Structure formats: C-alpha cells, structure tokens
C-alpha cells in the first residue's frame, strides 16, 4: 500500500455516525437480502485494490456507499468486500469475533480462499489494537495450518510478504520525504532561515517576505560584486596595485584614487608572461563587457526568481483551494520536540489563520462612490503625481547648478560643507518627505486596499528612480564643467570639489570619479538616515507606548511596503553607480546586512504585528517585478550616457575622442568578415523593427492563451464541485429512501440553493493564497 497518489472518490455519509450508531446500539434486524450482491467498492477504493467490483451503478466513477450491513452481528456469510470494509472500522466495534467472520467469508467463496492469507498479511493496516492483532494473527495462522489445501504453492505467496514489503515501503517513504524536503530556491539562501522563520511566526508571512526580499538582494549584490571584482578589479590589482599615481585624490581623499573608483584604471590593457605564453588582458573591453553583463545577470536572476516563485505557488494549489482546512488540519508538525519550536509553530498557525480571515474581510470591503467622482479623482491624482515628479527633477537640477552664497554670514567651512553636500541632502530630503505626502493624498482616490498598495509602491518607485536619474544627470552636468574650464581657463560657476591646477597641463578632470563620489555619498547618507530615522522613530514610539501609554501616534509597527521601497532605492543606487565604482555592489551588500540585523532586532523587541495584513501581490512577485522594472529604467539613461558621452581625458580606460563601445567594435572588427557583416546588419533598422513587431505579437498571443486557460480551469473546478455535490445528494436521498431512516437528517433540505451559492463562492477562494512558510 504505497503512499501518495491514491484517488479516493469522495462521498459523505457511509461512515457517518448516524448510520453506524444505529447498528451499534440497537441491532435491528432489517434484513435486506439484496444488499449483499449490490455492494460495490465502498468509495474507499485505492488504486491497488485487487478486489473487483461486483456491480456497477449507472453513475460510473463516483460510487455510492451504502450503509453498513444491518445484520452485522449475525454470522451470515459475508462477502470479502464487506468484510474488508468492516475491518476498516474495527475500532468502532471492538470485541467482535473477527476470526469467525473471516472464516465465514472464506467459506462463502470456495474458489478463492485466500482472503485469510490476505488479511493476515495486511493485518497491520487495520485499526485493531496490538493485542487484538496478535491474537487474530495467531488464530488465523492456526486456521490456515489446519485447513491446508493441496495447492500449497499459492498460499506461500501470500505468507512471505512481510520483510520485503516492509523494505520497499520504508525506502519508498524515506526517499519521498527526502525529495519533499529538497524544495529549491534559486540562490544559496539558507543563511538566515532560522531568523526568518522566527519572524514569520511572530508577524506572519507578509512581514517575513520583506526579510526574504532583503536576503535576495544581499545575495544578488554579492554575486554582482564578485563578478565585477573578478574581471575588473583583480586584474587591475595584479597589474597596477591598489592606487594609481596618475590619478588625483578627490572627495574621499586617497580612496578616490584607489581601485574602488573608475578613475584609477589604466588606459590600455596589459600583458603578462607566464608559462612561456603571453597573456594579454584587454582592460577597456573587459570593463565595458563586465558592466553590461552585470545588468544582464541581474535581470536574468530577477526574472528567473519571479518565474520559479510563481510556479512554486501554482503547484501548491491545494492551499489555494482549501486554505483554512489545510492550515488547521495539516498545520501541526508532529516532528517538533522542543518547546520553543512548538510555541513558534502554534503562533505561526494562529497568525496565518488571522491573516487569511483579514484578507477575506478586506477583499469584501469596497467603497461605493459615484463612478464619475472616482474617475475624476484618479485622473487628478495621477496628474498630480507626474507634476510632483517633474518638479522634483527640476529642483534637483536647479540646486546642482546654483550656488548658495553664504559668504556674509557663514564661515568658510560651513560654505564648503554645504556646497559639498547640498545635492545629496536635497535628494535625501525629497526621498523622505514626498512619498508620505503622496500616499496621504492617495486616500482620495478610493482604490481598494489591495490595488492601493500596489499603486503606491509603483508610484513611489517611479519617484525614486526619477529623482535618482535627475540627480545623476545634474551631477554629470556640473562635473563636466571642469572640462570647459580646463580648456578656456575661465572659472565657471560653482562646482563640486575641484583641485585648481594652474599649470600648462590641463587640470585633472575626471567626471566619472565625481559622479561616483556623489553616488557613494548618497549611499552612506542613505544608510545613516535609515538607521537613525528607523531607530529613532521606533524607539520613541515604543518608549512612549510602554512607559507613558501615549497612544496618539499609534503603535510602532511594520510598514512592509515602505521598507521594501527603501531597499529598492539602495538597489537603484547600485545600478546607477556600478559603472563608476566597480565594487559598489559589495559595499551595498554590507549595508544591507547591517540593515537586516537592525530591523530584525528592532522588530522582535519593539514592534507589533501590522494591523493591515494583506499582501500586495498574491505570489510575492510584485516586489521582484518592481525591482526588474526599476533595473530596466536605470539601464536606459546609463546606456544612453555611456554610449554618447565623452569619457574623461585624464583618467580611466578610454580616450576622449572615442566612445566606450568602440572598444567593443574594435574587437568585433577583428572578427572574420562574415561575422562582422552579420553584426553590422543586426544593428540596422530593417532588422530591428520586424523583430520588435514579432516579439510584441508573441506577447499578445501568450497573454490571450493564458487568459483562456485560466477561464477553462475555473470552469472545470466549478463543474467538479457541482458533480460531487450532485452525487452526494443522490446518494443521501437513496439511503434515506432505502431505509426509511428517521434519524437526524441533514439540516439543509433546500440543498439546491446552498449548492448554487457555494458554487459561486468557489472561485472566490481561489484568489487567496497564503503560502505556508515559503
């Protein structure tokens, strides 16, 4: 009897106590001679059940279970199926003399006496107590001994099943459980599993998903950092050492000259002699290709993770269909042996149940306003958002270009300080102030809670990306001014730190370094602001709640979407800055580790579970989707900039007159003729346009197909539920009609109506999915 995969046709009443109880308590002799031949497989049909069905009903597959034999107590010859069926419920009829029944059964069919052997071999499957089993086994053995038939060979086949059967079962079960435990995640992400489990027990899976997102980002950054390091920094270290003497120090002093920044890299490749072969390394090409591949790797990893997670959610379909039952009835893990594990588990179960129920309540809540009003509000809201975005971008550019003259009433150091930090401070302030304002105003747009969270996340992400791109552009504009200065000798408007070298040589002007420095500043400021604001706010709220019972500002709790957006901001900085600072991903990974532990400690000590418990997306892939979208958005300006802008003359790998991708083109120029022509052709419009059109068509086609599949699945599910209910009703009515039973009837006599309403509610359950401890 292998486990797993058996299909049991579902039905109700046969084993229900009402029928059974009657036969147990009062042995009414309602002899029905026709029941014996009418018995079919009693619904508990297993795949490997060897006994054939006696008779078929017209309903084919879904068998009807009849009530148990009314004359159970008597010793009339029973059929094998009946006997096996009764044995299944042996625990309800303790004290019966099974041996006599078995004897009777084997006697009833003289051609096939092996029922004794079969039962003896599978005795462990029946719910008898151990002493009963031992007794019965002994008596069966004696019975078989005394009634040995001439055909002894057939019997031995039944007898010696024990050890081999057991071995097969055991190994099968063990391997199945091993496979079940090896549920995969894409990256090696076992690092913080214990912490995350604890969090999810306390706060639910929604909050835990934030930590999982953080862990994913850390792994991604480590991967990207390693790639950059391997192909860019290490060769440089091997060749030139840590610092570059040609470069000049910048904002970060010596660090700006080092391998951390773009400016330190040499212009051309280098070569080494080893093992008699000259190894040459084309640094410019390597840098460019590694930078491109970083983007592609990130994109592929994010999309693959989204895909796998989505598929994993779809596979665990049972929890979509019956979330409550599965959480309650299958929720407890009997393997737990320590106290803490069990308290965690019980807390997790209750949190997830509460989550499910709040989810359902929230979905039911929909504000009904007049349609026109809602639409106007929404249009206004969107326009307002766009306006805010444009205004903030303009503000950044303005601040970058203008100088604030504090000469009269501030010291030199202060002016210097402000000049250095003004841009980053402005960006940081905008990041902190504007999104809360925007989300406050979103209340007037009357979205449903689920959509509201999604739109809020999307808008804030857009705002972040927009402000960062604006920041980048304005920094570049300022930084490249030094080039005109170096040519003209005049002094343009204020810049960020610049060393004024008034010699015949053109002054050191490296805009890449300056932009990189600004981004690094922003990264550090972000981290500091994060720590202080988070710490400060939660500590103040927690203390005021605990000691002063000051509830005005609400209890400190988790705002998961806000935290995810903060992480997104950091990640965008990585993507924008990786060209200027090859090792930025590693640095940001370290930042994120710090933030993880900070958030973890704070949440376990001060915070309470969030009051609004619902997820922005069913499968948790919305965060990844926003991440991928922002990656895409960041790629565009960087790509355009790198392709079109002039590299610096005094630093870096590329010549000012050539473009960066010329290094790639030179390499391709070295390819054989046919390859070169193909590549040339691929970059021309006649190739690109048709390809784009074909891709768009493919997308539309697959979308249409998926929509129709989804609809079909819903229809099938409804139909399945409906047929099951119809069968059950028919069976119940048959039973009732058959026996003239006057016991307790099912409450709902208007079965039809309830059927309809439950049918209609069927699909509604399908949209809740609360993944169990992802």
């Amino acid at each position, binding site marked *: 009897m292998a486990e797993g995969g058996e299909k049991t046709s579902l039905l109700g009443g046969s084993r229900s106590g009402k029928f059974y*109880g009657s036969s147990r308590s009062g042995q009414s002799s309602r002899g029905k001679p026709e029941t014996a031949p009418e018995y079919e497989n009693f619904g*508990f049909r297993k795949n490997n059940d060897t006994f054939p069905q006696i008779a078929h009903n017209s309903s084919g597959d879904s068998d009807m279970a009849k009530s148990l034999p009314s004359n159970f107590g008597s010793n009339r010859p029973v059929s094998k199926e009946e006997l096996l069926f009764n044995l299944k419920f042996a625990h309800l009829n303790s004290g019966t003399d099974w041996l006599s029944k078995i004897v009777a059964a084997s006697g009833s069919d003289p051609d096939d006496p092996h029922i004794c052997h079969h039962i003896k071999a599978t005795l*462990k*499957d029946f719910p008898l107590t*151990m002493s009963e089993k031992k007794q019965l086994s002994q008596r069966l053995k004696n019975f078989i001994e005394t009634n040995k038939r001439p055909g002894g060979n057939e019997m031995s086949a039944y007898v010696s099943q024990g050890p081999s059967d057991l071995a097969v079962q055991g190994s099968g079960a063990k391997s199945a459980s091993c496979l079940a435990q090896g549920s995969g995640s894409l990256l090696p992400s076992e690092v913080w599993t214990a912490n995350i489990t604890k969090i999810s027990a306390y706060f639910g899976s929604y909050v835990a998903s934030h930590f999982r997102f953080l862990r994913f980002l850390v792994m991604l950054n480590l991967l990207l950092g390693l790639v950059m390091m391997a192909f860019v920094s290490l060769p440089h270290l091997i060749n030139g050492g840590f610092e570059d003497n040609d470069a000049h120090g910048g904002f970060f002093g010596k660090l700006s000259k080092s391998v951390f920044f773009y400016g330190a890299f040499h212009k051309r490749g280098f070569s080494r002699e080893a093992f008699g072969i000259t190894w040459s390394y084309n640094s410019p090409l390597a840098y460019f290709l590694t930078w491109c591949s970083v983007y592609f790797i990130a994109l592929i990893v994010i999309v693959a993770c989204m895909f796998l997670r989505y598929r994993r959610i779809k596979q665990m379909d049972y929890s979509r269909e019956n979330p409550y039952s599965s959480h309650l009835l299958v929720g407890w893990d009997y393997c737990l042996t320590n106290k803490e594990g069990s308290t965690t588990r019980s807390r997790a179960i209750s949190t997830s*149940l509460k989550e499910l129920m709040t989810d359902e309540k929230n979905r039911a809540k929909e504000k009904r306003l007049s349609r026109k009003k809602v639409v106007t509000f929404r249009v206004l809201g969107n326009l307002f958002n766009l306006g805010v975005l444009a205004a903030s971008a303009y503000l950044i550019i303005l601040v970058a270009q203008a100088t604030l003259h504090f000469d009269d009433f501030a010291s030199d150091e202060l002016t210097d300080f402000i000049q250095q930090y003004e841009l980053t401070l402005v960006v940081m302030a905008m990041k902190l102030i504007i999104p809360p304002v925007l989300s406050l105003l979103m209340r007037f747009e009357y979205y449903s809670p689920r959509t509201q969270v999604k739109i809020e996340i999307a808008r804030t992400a857009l705002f972040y990306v927009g402000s960062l791109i604006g920041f980048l552009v304005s920094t570049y504009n300022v930084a490249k001014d030094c080039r005109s200065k170096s040519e003209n000798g005049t002094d343009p408007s204020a810049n960020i730190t610049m060393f004024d070298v008034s010699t015949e040589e053109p002054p050191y002007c490296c805009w890449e370094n300056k932009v990189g420095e600004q981004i690094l500043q922003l990264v550090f400021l972000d981290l500091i602001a994060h720590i202080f604001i988070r710490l400060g706010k939660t500590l103040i709220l927690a203390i005021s709640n605990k000691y002063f019972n000051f509830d005005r500002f609400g209890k400190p709790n988790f705002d998961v979407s806000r935290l995810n957006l903060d992480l997104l901001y950091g990640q965008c900085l990585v993507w924008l800055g990786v060209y200027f600072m090859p090792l930025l991903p590693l640095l940001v990974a370290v930042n994120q580790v710090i933030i993880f532990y900070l958030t973890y400690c704070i949440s376990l000590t001060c915070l309470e579970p969030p009051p609004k418990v619902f997820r922005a997306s069913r499968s948790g892939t919305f965060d990844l989707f926003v991440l991928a979208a922002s990656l895409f958005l960041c790629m565009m300006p960087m790509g355009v900039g790198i392709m079109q802008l002039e590299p610096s003359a005094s630093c870096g790998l590329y010549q000012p007159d050539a473009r960066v991708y010329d290094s790639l083109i030179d390499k391709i120029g070295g390819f054989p003729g046919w390859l070169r022509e193909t590549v040339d052709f691929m970059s021309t419009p006649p190739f690109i346009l048709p390809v784009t059109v074909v891709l768009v068509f493919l997308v539309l086609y697959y979308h249409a197909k998926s929509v129709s599949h989804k609809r079909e699945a819903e229809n099938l599910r409804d139909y399945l539920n409906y047929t099951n*209910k119809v069968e059950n009703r028919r069976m119940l009515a048959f039973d009732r009609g058959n026996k003239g039973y006057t016991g307790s009837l099912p409450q709902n006599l208007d079965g039809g109506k309830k059927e309809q309403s439950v049918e209609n509610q069927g699909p509604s359950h399908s949209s809740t999915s609360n993944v169990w401890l992802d």
Partner: protein
Amino acid sequence: MGGSQSVFTEEELDDYQTLTYLSKKEILHVFKRFKSLAPGLVEANKNVKLPMSKITEMPELKVNPFRDQICKVFSSSGDGMTFEDFLDMMSVFSDGAPKNVKVEYAFRVYDFDGDDLISDTDLQNVIEKLTGANQLSEADMQQLIENIMEEADLDDDKTLSFAEFEHVISKAPDFVNSFRFRM
C-alpha cells in the same frame, strides 16, 4: 540494543515486525524509549500499563497539543498504554506507515468526542488546542469554523465524515511528512 534483545523472543519480534511498519531494530529502539519513561516499572513487567501522565512526558508528545487525544486513541483500555499500544502508536507515526493509515488515525485524533464525525465542537477543540496561547476571538473562531465547513463539508450535514476529511487531507502533500515522529 544489547540489553533489550533478551526481553523478546525471536518469535515475538517477528510477530511485531509483521504487525507493524517498523523493522526489528526500530522495535527494540521503541522498547528502549518506552522503558525510559518508567524504568522501574517496565523492568519488572514488560507488559505493564503505564498511566497517561507518564506517556505524555515523551518529548514528542510533551509539546504536542493533541497529546491527550493521541494517547486516548491508541490506548486499548482507555486509561493507560501498554508497550504494545505504544508500539502501535510509533508504528503509525513512523515513516513506513502508508498515507491512508495515517489519515485514518488523524481523523480519530481530531474526533474529540469519538462519534466518528468531526463536528463543530470538535473543530473548536482543535482550534483551541492548536492556537494555544494565542487564542482567536470568539467571532474569529466562529468564522473560521464556518469557513472550514464550507470548504470541506460537501454533503451539508454540518459535520465532516471520514470521506470528506480524507478528501481535504489527501490533497495536501505535506501531511505525510508532518504526521510522524522522528525515531
């Protein structure tokens, strides 16, 4: 294993092996654990019936919210477990037991009043025991019970029969892994 080998004859061990899902070695290991619950009593008589209070001190049962019910289900006499009952229990909770047997016993564990049906009160008991210290509110509990009945009770008799229970459980791939004791 050396000491307990002499407690059972070869024939007895064979018998136990045919009647349970455990191997001989596992059976002896189970006996060792049974003995560790009350060494003195078991030394004296290997068929002694240990009271429920001693049985529930076993690590797996100690933290299990359903420990009393589990003991009740597997006890042959209703007020204590002999070694054979204990062996029965460990056999059902072992890796070798097939899914249908586990489902059968799971149903009996959740059926608190023993009437072969899972009714509202049974479900309420299950919820209370599962959530332990983090009790749901009364309204939440009622809502939860209603939801479960809606999902699982297909013949609308306000109770879950074994077939309905099995139907819900059999679709959960986790069940076999979670309904077991580690040896």
